Structure formats: structure tokens, C-alpha cells
């Protein structure tokens, strides 16, 4: 039994409100159906019906976890999420499988790389993108008690060697370079690529480039303080995400700096369009989001900005993008 299954079953045994619904996507939760009895529902390949039913249950006091492929969950069922979950502000925790780069060989139809953008665009909706299995489990515990809707990027990758801070929506954590006073670079990231960012930071550190890595954890609410702190203390802010460059963390950073009248040098790393499918490690290399590629792109960008004057502390000049 994996930790997700344990969490669902533990929660269900304590909280009779919990119902789990899937759109015929039982991988990662095979032991749940027989143990949850009628509180596990498989609607078949019917994401719209799944979300509508979840909303109907949630407004009657249930807490519903819906579990389906991230691409189909967020896009096939989008209007149901918008109308029936978000408008109702119903406690439905929507867990999306193989989000971002994790769809590896499936191809563009299965790529959820605009999911953060469209989900955070909805009023009432929260967005949680954990970096490893422990963070997923810790966050889910909190979300299941939150009485509001959430979209969650599922991840079950082995735990990163990072210090952990109790999960709190809207609170980012420093996962590398906490003790650096004024790092040359702050990488803001979330989800699967957090590992690549930490490795890239280690590599850059060996060249005397001091890099802090910040794990955003939730993209909505996003930790604005962490973003402003990065902009105020580093020569270069880098966003790294397995998501389109529109609407995700790159946009969140731009929106935040704009709202606070701050400027910064920002390098945005993400997908300009659908990525070429293949084995995961090859995709990372091919899309220039492996740790080596991230380190290389940061080095290049740093080399560019040493030739321009540093941003004055309270500058309102325009945000620059890679």
C-alpha cells in the first residue's frame, strides 16, 4: 500500500464525510476500492460526470477527492469544475495524475502543462503542486480539512533531501541555500522539477555562483513575500516549471512584481509549447530542463546581465524576461 492509499484510508476511517471518485484511473490507489466500499466510486471514463457528482456530494457536506488524469480532469471537465465546484466553493480536492512533464511518452493530448494557469484563473480554487511524495501527503492532509476546492498535481517521486516546514497554503519553503545572505540567483520552482533545480544549484555552487532554491508549494495562493524577497536580494530570479510559460509561475512572478512596482532580472524556464514526448530523462534533456541544462541557462543569463547596470533597490523599470 502506498502512502496516498494509506492517507485516503486513514482519513476515511476517521472522517465519514470522505468520498473518493475516479474516472477509471485506479493506478496508485488499487487497494482503496475494496476498503472504502460505497465511498469509492468509479464512474468510468466520464470526467464531467465525476466532477458534477463530486460537487453534488460536497454541497451536502461531503469531502470529495476526485482522481483522474490531469489533462482530462482539468480540461475535459473544465466547465464542470468552474460552474459546479468553483462557483459553489465546494470542498472537492481534484488530484491530477501525470501532470506536467510526467506524461513523458504520451504526447500532447495527455500533457497537462496549462493546468496551473487555467485552475488558478478560477475564483475560489486553490492550486497545490508538491515536489515529492512526502510533500504531497503532508499537503493533502491539510487540504482535506480546508472545506474549499483544490487542484493538486499528483506526485509520488522519492523524497528529496530537504528540510521540511509544516505545509501551509501560500507559504513557500527554501529547499536549498537557506543560509545565503545575498545569493547571486534565486530559483523559484514547484513540483517535479524541484529536484533538477537543487542539482543545478549544486553545480553552479561549484563555480562559485550562489543559488537559493525556493519551492513555492502552492501556486494559488502564491507566496508573494518569497517572490519579492527573491527579487530584492538576488541579481537574477529564475522561474522553473514544467508548465507553459503563460499563466504559471513565470506569470505569477511578473504579476507580483508589477503589483508591487518592483523590477528584477528574471529568467523564465518552462515550455513555450507542447513538449516532444519521450522517455522522461530524454524529455528533460531535449526541453533543456535537466539540471545541467538549467545550470547552463542560468550561467548564460548571468553572463548577459553583468553587462547592464544592476537594478536600483526601488526601481520601477520593466521586468525583463529571457
Amino acid at each position, binding site marked *: 500500500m502506498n502512502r496516498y492509499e494509506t492517507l485516503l484510508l486513514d482519513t476515511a476511517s476517521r472522517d465519514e464525510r470522505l468520498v473518493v471518485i475516479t474516472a477509471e484511473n485506479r493506478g496508485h490507489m488499487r487497494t482503496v476500492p475494496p476498503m472504502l466500499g460505497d*465511498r469509492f466510486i468509479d*464512474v468510468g471514463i*466520464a470526467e*464531467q*460526470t465525476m466532477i*458534477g*457528482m463530486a460537487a453534488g*456530494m460536497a454541497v451536502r457536506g461531503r469531502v470529495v477527492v476526485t482522481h483522474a488524469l490531469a489533462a482530462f480532469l482539468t480540461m475535459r471537465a473544465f466547465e464542470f469544475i468552474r*460552474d459546479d465546484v468553483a462557483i*459553489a466553493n465546494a470542498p472537492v480536492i481534484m488530484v491530477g495524475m501525470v501532470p506536467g512533464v510526467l506524461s513523458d511518452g504520451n504526447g500532447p493530448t495527455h500533457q497537462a502543462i496549462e493546468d496551473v494557469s487555467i485552475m488558478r484563473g478560477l475564483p475560489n480554487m486553490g492550486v497545490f503542486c508538491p515536489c515529492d511524495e512526502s510533500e504531497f501527503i503532508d499537503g493533502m492532509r491539510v487540504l482535506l480539512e480546508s472545506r474549499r476546492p483544490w487542484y493538486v498535481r499528483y506526485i509520488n517521486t522519492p523524497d528529496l533531501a530537504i528540510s521540511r516546514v509544516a505545509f501551509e497554503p501560500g507559504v513557500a519553503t527554501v529547499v536549498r541555500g537557506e543560509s545565503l545572505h545575498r545569493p547571486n540567483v534565486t530559483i523559484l520552482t514547484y513540483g517535479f522539477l524541484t529536484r533538477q533545480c537543487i542539482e543545478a544549484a549544486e553545480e553552479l555552487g561549484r563555480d562559485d555562483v550562489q543559488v537559493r532554491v525556493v519551492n513555492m508549494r502552492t501556486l494559488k495562493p502564491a507566496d508573494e513575500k518569497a517572490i519579492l524577497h527573491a527579487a530584492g536580494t538576488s541579481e537574477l530570479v529564475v522561474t522553473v516549471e514544467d508548465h507553459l510559460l503563460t499563466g504559471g509561475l513565470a506569470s505569477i512572478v511578473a504579476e507580483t512584481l508589477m503589483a508591487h512596482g518592483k523590477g528584477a532580472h528574471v529568467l523564465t524556464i518552462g515550455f513555450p509549447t507542447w513538449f516532444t514526448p519521450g522517455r522522461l530523462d530524454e524529455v528533460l534533456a531535449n526541453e533543456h530542463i535537466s539540471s545541467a541544462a538549467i545550470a547552463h541557462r542560468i550561467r548564460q543569463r548571468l553572463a548577459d546581465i553583468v553587462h547592464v547596470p544592476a537594478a536600483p533597490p526601488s526601481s520601477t523599470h520593466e521586468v525583463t524576461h529571457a
Partner: protein
Amino acid sequence: MTLEERNALEQAALRVRQHIVRMSTNGGCFIGASLSCADVLVYLYWRFLNISPLTVNAEDRDVLLLSKGHDVPALYGVLAERGFISKDRLKNHLSVDDHIYWHPNRAVSGVEFHSGSLGHLLSVGMGMALDARMKGLPTRVVVILGDGELNEGSVWEACLVASALSIDNLVAIVDRNHFQANIRTEELVPLEPLAEKFRAFGWDAMYVNGHDMESLDECFGALQLNTGRPTVVIADTRRGKGLPSIEERADRWFCNFSPEEADALLDELSGNSRATLTSETLIVR
């Protein structure tokens, strides 16, 4: 049903229709669809549904959902007549100071879920029905669907799943008024044979005259739930029912009448001469 009971229901339906006509001016409303389902809603709230202003939050109450939300003036009329909301409040139609507008908002007492976009509330109702079943409650969930709404694939997806999950405390009612927006259903995307379609999806299906209280009483009195199958009642209705001057007219879908026209229509409802209507109607969807 005694003659007195029948008269009382018909009088209630007349008052609901008067509310609908009053909401068709000063901004207007989807009057045709509201009039077609008025009798069904009156029958359900007076004779079938286990719900009242006193039990509006009771866990075991029956639930009615308007999946075709644009007929909500009929529901508001019913809720006002049954005391869920005050009749005075209907004057707030389209005021930003209240929640009463062209589609349902569940901030209004008695409205169980919001709608507007078609094809949503069958699945929402299925979730409610399953929740009640899991809790061992006698709750029945009734979902009003439009016939035009049946164009939406999500309705049929939900039908398949309702059957697969044997949701048998669920009743869908199709307000079969034979129109969608500005065209007859059979001229655009034909639905017939409709009962056979539902039966092929594993549902029990029956027809009823949706404007005859006696027929409605026979149909809902004989309704067998808890059979392992969901049920659909196809209510044969006329769009604009009660107002011959707009009945069955493709162009009288959304109407915003002048106060004088609304007064004439109120006369017409009471059996007086037909109103002369000059207001333009909304043809485009």
C-alpha cells in the same frame, strides 16, 4: 385527486404564471420555457416533494434541481407561493441587490444548486442522490431537464453512469416542449424516439401530459423508485403554455415586454382576449 384538489393546483399554477409574466417586463425573462414547466413544478411542490420552508435544510428533504436554469421564474413563482421566499421579493428580479436573475442562484432559499450552462445538474443530482443513499436517507432527487438540453453530451454521459451506479432515488423530468431557443427540436437535432433512448441507457421511462394535474398525479403516484434503475418522466408540454399569443412560437423565447403588454398578458392568462404584442423578441441565442 378530488376536484377541489385539482382546482387548487390549477389556481396555484395560474398564480405562478402571473409571477412569471410579471418577471417578463423591465428586463424580461425566458418566459416560454418558464410557462411550459410551471404545471409540473406546481404539482411537484404541492403533491410530490417532501420539502417545505420548515425543512429547507433538513438532511432527508427531497431535492429539486433545475438543470435548464433559464426556466427559474417558474421556480421562483413556486417558491414564493409555497412560502420559501416572500412574494414581494419577486419584484427584485434583475436587481443587483438580490440574487434573483435569469438563472438560479442557491443563495435564494429553496434553490438547491445554481445552473445556467446546460447539461450540468443531472450529474450534480446524481452526487446528491448517492450521498443520500449512502446515508440511508429517503431523499429523492428530481432533476428538470430541457429537451434542447438533451443535445449536450454530458447529459447522456451522466445517464450511462446513473444506470451503471443504479441510482434509483433519482428522477429526471424532461420538459418536452419541443422547442430549443428559436427552433423546434425535431427540426434541428431530432430527439425521438426519446423514451426508447433513455430505456436503451438503462432507465425506466414514461410519458405524462405535463399540463394536466390529473395525469401528473397518476404518473407520480404510480412512480416506482428503488428498482435499481433511474427514472425519467417525459412531460409533454407546450412552450408558452397559458398565453395563446406566445404559445408554440419560435420567436417568443426570451421576451422583455412593456408594462402595458405585461398587463395585457395577465388579462390573457385569466381567459380574456389575446394581448397585442409589439415588443421585439430576442431571436439570437
